[in-house]
């Protein structure tokens, strides 16, 4: 039961050493599909953060009441409830951004990362720790989406957050949908390279 990490460590863990997109390689669909701009990344990141935090807390509160044999359906229904909430809220408050993200907000329900965190963390740890863990995972997802979105928006349309930065469009290819695969692949390779380099220099 005991968790030896402080709340700060849990958040940092989600952003860096267990980053959902680059380290765990989960929930890749939105990272490829709609990461064309930074704004999309922020919006979907907020939605995932919301769902992750609230599902983690809910499961953590009721962890003693859930029978182990039906835990996966329980997780799925909990997630689906919170996804419905954020789906309706976004559709009402930010219709433009919601239209851009299309079906992906509803598909948060099938994100492997959220179920995985509930199974591995929230069903064992305290409510407080689950909250921080959920926050870290959500932020990690958001950071990943924003980094990919930043690269694609900068290289594809020469802009950041819609503001023209470069004044020209270096590689229009990156704004094309299929470039998402290349950007994610190259970035994973880059992080692998850093890791290898770090290990080698350590001896």
């Amino acid at each position, binding site marked *: 039961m005991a968790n030896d990490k402080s709340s700060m460590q849990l958040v940092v863990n989600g952003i860096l050493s267990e980053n959902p997109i680059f380290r765990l390689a989960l929930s890749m669909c939105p990272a490829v599909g709609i990461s064309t701009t930074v704004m999309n990344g922020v919006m979907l990141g907020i939605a995932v953060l919301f769902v992750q935090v609230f599902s983690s807390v809910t499961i953590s509160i009721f962890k003693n009441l859930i029978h182990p044999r039906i835990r996966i*359906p329980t997780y*799925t229904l909990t997630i689906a409830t919170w996804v419905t909430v954020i789906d309706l809220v976004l559709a009402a408050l930010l219709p433009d951004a919601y239209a851009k993200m299309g079906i992906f907000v509803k598909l948060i329900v099938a994100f492997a990362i959220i179920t995985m965190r509930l199974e591995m963390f929230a069903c064992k740890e305290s409510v407080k720790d689950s909250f921080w863990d959920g926050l870290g995972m959500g932020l990690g997802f958001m950071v990943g989406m924003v980094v990919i979105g930043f690269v694609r928006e900068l290289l594809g349309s020469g802009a950041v957050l819609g503001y023209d930065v470069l004044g020209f469009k270096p590689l229009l290819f990156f704004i094309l949908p299929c470039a998402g695969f290349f950007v994610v692949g190259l970035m994973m*390779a880059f992080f692998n390279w850093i890791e290898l380099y770090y290990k080698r220099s350590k001896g």
Partner: protein
Amino acid sequence: MMTFNKIHFLLFMALILCLAPILAHGADFITDQNFAGDNEIVVSFSAPLDKATAEVTGNYTVFEEPDPDIRLKLESATLADDGKSVSLLFAEPLNMIRTHIVSISGLPGQEKTTFKVSKSYLGYLFSILISALLINNFVFTKYLGLCVFFGTSKRKSTAKGMGVVFTLVMVAASLMSWFFYQFILVPYNLNFLQILVFIGLVSLTVQAVDTVLRKVNPILFNSFGVYLVLVIANCVIIAVPLILANNNYNVFETLMLSLGAGGGFLLALYLMSSVSERMELANIPPTFKGLPIAFIVAGQFAMAFLGFSGLQIF
């Protein structure tokens, strides 16, 4: 002997039924009617028309079959140079799935002629299938189901197993979702429960297939059972019910969409696993080993699938 005659008779009737529209056409003054562009209907006649009457937009009334009260706004009617065909341009794009009813007044000989313009429904169903399979392939052009896609595309045998199990569950789950959507969610205004109901149905279907397969065919279960768990984690399986609810598909269209989605996933897995097996022999830089190179290969497939976007069959 009797049955033989019966079959002949049935074949003959079927032939007559197929030919009936063509025979009927021949007798008419109007020889052909078709959708041309997004907002255009072209009508051909057997004899040249008078330019003065044919180009008056007031002579035409056009509406969709289900709601005759909503007349579609006609922008212009242009007579072709030989006088034998008129192209009707509309202010707004037409919904080509629906049957349109066009009536023309002021034609020589008759006071008013009414006819239907529609696409072949079978062709439309087939186009849904092809679209989900190639043009809007769920993996390479919609970027869904990637976690499972990269996880199970290492070996051809795994890819085939996963693809087949996925297609079966997909068809069963989407037909059930369609039923629930049309007969429970829509009549009782429970649309906001979509996500909850669909994900529940999908989990139930997977559980049911698991139980049935375990009892009925243990051999098949041993080879395919492991993939069943992965099906739940696939976003395609929840995306298809959401798409069919959005587009208000009927049961045949649902069947075609789910078959196309499953088949498209199978196709993508098979293509990817063929490349993966070759890649094991290749000398890949250590930083690119594993997922990074798989992503780059998938990116190339996605570029290739962009080529299908111009495909239009019907």
